């Protein structure tokens, strides 16, 4: 099987869908001639031309809204918002238009719109370029959110997003772009929001998503050396969430740890903890525990930046504490 980087997998997915369907087109800042600021659209401008790989002005709200209007008129636009941070300027188009038009129209208009946005904490980009927006977006009825953590999922989930008749937000992670992994373009993809058990274990359940799922897997490796078997679940998406897979694991292990890169307060972890506490209360031997970013904007300082988000050692330490206090 071929090995691809995360950005190459995204590029393959775009290429495959553009080749399959003339109504698919890409738009965003520097997606065309420049090849994409994270190289994701590399080569597509030459292959499909400037109309289908459209360089836009710096006008996030209007070009995302353009995607909305085009989707209503039967196209399958793929909007690239250069980074999650700039999506704040497009929240009107995303939340008030894309998410609500199918509903407000009584189901008359589908919204086959894909909005890609890489985000997360990268390398000292400062507070304005290191945000996570999942807490804002996952609260919006009418949106779907996928959070691929591996090149294979990046390939599968972007293709599924483009084929979906709903608006799908693809939350990528800037630090995953050069991660390598196997990508099989021939096997059938699992459903887009099916959570994946990335590692089986019986001592506790660790639920995570995006890059933090990989960090949780690394933590599980450290724990295994100490005789602790963690089950690591990669949610692969935040709306909807595959509660059945999560609940089955929590009912098996009786302990739940959630690892997230976003801030703890009112974050994804809060929703996961609350829902699984409601659903699996009888099986839980302790209150769910969260490992999350501190409630601070990202500091520029390199060491502090690492300190505010969970590292594998932090996840492992939390797992140890949870097990030691409840065994």
């Amino acid at each position: 099987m071929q090995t691809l980087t995360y950005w190459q997998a995204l590029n393959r997915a775009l290429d495959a869908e553009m080749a399959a369907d003339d109504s698919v087109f890409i738009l965003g800042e520097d997606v065309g001639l420049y090849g994409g600021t994270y190289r994701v659209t590399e080569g597509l401008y030459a292959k499909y031309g400037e109309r289908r790989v459209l360089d836009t002005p710096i006008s996030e709200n209007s070009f995302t809204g353009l995607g909305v209007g085009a989707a209503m008129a039967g196209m399958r636009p793929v909007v690239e918002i250069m980074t999650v941070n700039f999506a704040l300027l497009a929240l009107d188009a995303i939340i008030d238009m894309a998410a609500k038009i199918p509903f407000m129209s009584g189901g008359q208009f589908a919204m086959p719109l894909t909005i890609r946005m890489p985000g997360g904490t990268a390398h000292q980009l400062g507070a304005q370029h290191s945000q996570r927006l999942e807490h804002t977006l996952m609260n919006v009825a009418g949106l779907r959110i996928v959070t691929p953590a591996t090149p294979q999922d990046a390939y599968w989930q972007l293709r599924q997003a483009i084929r979906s008749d709903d608006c799908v937000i693809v939350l990528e992670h800037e630090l995953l772009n050069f991660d390598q992994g196997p990508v099989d373009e021939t096997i059938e993809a699992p459903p887009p929001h099916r959570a994946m058990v990335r590692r089986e274990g019986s001592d506790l359940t660790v639920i995570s998503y995006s890059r933090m799922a990989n960090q949780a897997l690394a933590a599980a490796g450290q724990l295994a050396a100490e005789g602790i078997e963690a089950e690591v679940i990669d949610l692969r998406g935040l709306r909807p969430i595959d509660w059945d897979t999560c609940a089955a694991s929590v009912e098996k292990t009786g302990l739940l740890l959630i690892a997230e890169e976003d801030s703890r307060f009112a974050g994804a972890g809060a929703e996961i903890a609350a829902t699984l506490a409601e659903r699996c209360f009888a099986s839980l031997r302790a209150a769910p525990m969260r490992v999350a970013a501190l409630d601070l904007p990202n500091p520029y300082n390199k060491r502090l930046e690492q300190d505010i988000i969970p590292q594998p050692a932090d996840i492992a330490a939390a797992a140890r504490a949870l097990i030691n206090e409840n065994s």
Partner: protein
Amino acid sequence: MDRELHIRFLRDMLRARRMEERFAQEYTRGNIGGFLHLYPGEEAVAVGVLHAAEPGDYIVSTYREHVHALVRGMSMRAIAAELFGKRDGCSRGMGGSMHLFDAAHRFLGGYAIVGETYPVAIGAAYAVMMRGLPEAVICFFGDGAVNQGNFHESLNMAALWKLPVLFVCENNHYQIGTEIHRHSAVTEVYKRACAYNIPAERVTGMDAEQVHTHTLDALKRVRAGLGPALLEFETYRYRGHSMSDPGSYRPQPELKAWEADDPIAAELRDLPMHYPDADTLKAAGIDTTEDIGHRAIENGHLDTHGLEKLEAEIRAEIEDAIAFALASPEPTLDEAKGYLTAGLIHETLI
């Protein structure tokens, strides 16, 4: 312009005026909820513009859109039922007064966040351009909406890519209660378009024929692939911004002056002579209490019986629409859930 077209304009303007007046009544009766933004005074714009549109064109509108929907050809029944929040409404009771949608008429919705119509319009226009079709997109907005960033973002892209959009400003001179000279450094909206090399002009919005002529000309250019155009129609709303606004910030003489320039009265005045002559009218001796009727008869431009018949037809249409809306069932919560995501029907999500 031929007499038949005049009559069609008159009919649609009267339907619009009477429909909105009835909706105001239904609002006070509690049959219509939420915000209700009515159109009286501005009818010539909707009628002149939308009678110039082709069935293949897309229409994007604001929260003051009942009349746009009606003149576009959507049934008064579906509009009334939507305002009543019922299942047979054009948005199945999910949208309400500010969110009328109809895919069959390419009516891409009423939008209640000021300035949202521009990006939807350029998006539909981009789809049209990619398919190479001779279709156009008509994008309505008010004078208050030109101060949103989307105005500039979208006009820039429309001009940059020569998108087939006709931007139609309904300048009624007030953003809710703030008059244009207090909200806009440049009070002539059309002048803003030159920043993007978009041809634009200002036209009276109180005369349907002029609105129609200028719209046809602009659409010709738009359909030819020459890029967008902008028309600013100067008009006036007789009522407040919404039913909860008495509009008392506007001086009475101003309101009276605009009412004297009423578009429906103008239509009656300009209607070509047909029959009968003044003597026949006098002999008929039929009077209506309607001012409009008086004007028509005084000017001898419309047969008394013709106008009565027209008004009676419209009254019947309105009664039928209101009865339909009242009788239409309430939508269910299950229906509401089903409208959220089109994909749920076709895809296995989890």
